[in-house]
């Protein structure tokens, strides 16, 4: 047996925008064990429910993450609405679905750019982020915010989107769809990319399931887990199938994200066709008394907001289980046995969002 050495990976590393530390135990160039460490930027946001009223707390829930911000606020308010037994207007459900798919598009394009950049594929990086600008512009035009939208509230949403703007959004998405097709074709069919990703960092279907993988990390291993299938918001009225790949390697996880962008465009188009007229919010009185595990599908996978109230304005508990947090154990598993040089690529294929994990 070769002599074992331990080398640190992170918390500062060129491929990591946020701090994550891995102690890599190596035998020659092969990783034989991994000890993950987070907690460098833990903010304890959940504790603020004791200081902020449940209606104000939406703004804090949204600030858990700067990428999945809208879906955090959506998951939080739908949990509160469930506890309080609120039947929110149907138009609101469609608007939330549209904005959550825009969030997925901008997150996946952000990831594609960062991932390509980490491998030196600068043209994909620039084009991915150029297309992402279009998505952010639509988010800003319809919500008022590019990163933090601030549009969700308990009982509805703060803004409506006019029918003309909805049509314009679909036309815009159709306009960039072929560019997106070109971009993902170049990325997924490039021989260097395939050489770097195929057969690397393999996570079996069984390991993905029992080690807690969610989102594209799970779907890249053949697990068709997609919380949108539970039908929250307007997803129950939309036809879509989760994108699933079966090889479990880095390439499969990347392919899932690339193909999911087209599913998102299709979902938005269906929503615009089906969205009914009507109000976008309702009057809410009282305070939540009960508990609920509210779930949604973020770009990185299933997010859970556990909410417990006792009939007072301040909640008793708000606990968020983010997808990156539960994707850490699978990451440990898929790094074991890989070459040291492949570690950065493998880490990025789970699209880690430390901001979420360190809520």
């Amino acid at each position: 047996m070769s002599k074992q050495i331990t080398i640190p990976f992170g918390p500062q590393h060129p491929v990591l925008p946020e701090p994550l530390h891995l102690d890599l135990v190596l035998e020659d160039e092969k990783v034989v064990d991994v000890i993950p460490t987070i907690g460098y930027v833990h903010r304890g946001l959940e504790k603020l429910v004791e200081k902020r009223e449940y209606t104000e707390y939406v703004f804090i829930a949204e600030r858990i993450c700067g990428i999945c911000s809208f879906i955090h606020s959506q998951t939080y308010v739908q949990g509160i609405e469930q506890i309080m037994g609120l039947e929110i207007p149907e138009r609101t459900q469609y608007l939330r679905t549209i904005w959550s798919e825009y969030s997925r598009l901008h997150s996946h394009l952000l990831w594609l750019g960062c991932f390509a950049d980490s491998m030196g594929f600068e043209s994909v990086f620039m084009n991915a982020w150029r297309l992402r600008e279009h998505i952010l512009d639509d988010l800003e035009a319809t919500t008022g915010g590019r990163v933090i939208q601030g549009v969700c509230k308990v009982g509805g949403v703060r803004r409506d989107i006019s029918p003309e703007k909805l049509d314009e959004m679909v036309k815009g998405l159709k306009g960039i769809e072929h560019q997106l097709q070109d971009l993902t074709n170049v990325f997924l069919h490039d021989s260097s990319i395939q050489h770097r990703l195929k057969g690397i960092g393999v996570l079996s279907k069984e390991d993905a399931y029992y080690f807690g993988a969610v989102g594209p990390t799970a779907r890249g291993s053949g697990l068709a887990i997609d919380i949108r299938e539970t039908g929250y918001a307007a997803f129950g009225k939309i036809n879509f199938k989760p994108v699933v790949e079966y090889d479990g390697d880095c390439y499969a996880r990347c392919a899932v994200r690339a193909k999911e962008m087209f599913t998102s465009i299709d979902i938005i188009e269906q929503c615009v066709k089906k969205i009914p007229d009507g109000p976008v919010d309702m009057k809410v009185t009282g305070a939540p008394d009960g508990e609920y595990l509210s779930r949604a599908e973020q770009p990185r996978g299933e997010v859970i907001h556990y909410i417990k109230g006792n009939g007072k304005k301040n909640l008793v508990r708000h606990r968020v289980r983010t997808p990156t947090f539960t994707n850490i154990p699978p990451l440990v598993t898929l790094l074991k046995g890989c070459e040291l040089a492949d570690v950065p690529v493998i880490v990025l294929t789970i699209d880690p969002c430390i901001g979420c994990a360190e809520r």
Partner: protein
Amino acid sequence: MMEPQTITPISVGDVVRKVEQAKKDGNRLVQIGCTKIEDNFEILYVFDKDYKLTNYRVTVKQTDEIPSISGVYFGAFVYENEIHDLYGIHVKGINIDFKGTFYKTVVKHPFSVTITKEDDACQNK
């Protein structure tokens, strides 16, 4: 409206058996969370199969010890270290035990105390 959810209370002694049964039944571990209710701590184990949640709750004191389920579900170590570091509840037998260094906080076990608005220096200026 979304699906109704139920939470089944269990004793500390039943945790490992129930969790083993959940795995045998084909459930995945969704999360373990902790909530402080006055002097008690509620530990909530959540499992999922085909989008149906199964929830078990144990209620303990801070001085009690709960068994780790990381021998059944490898990924449980992140939740169990979190519960130890934020609430100060000892979890016995975690497969990757950070021994209190998973979260590095200025205040030890910060979630084990309840903060009232009166305690908030910023808000009382």
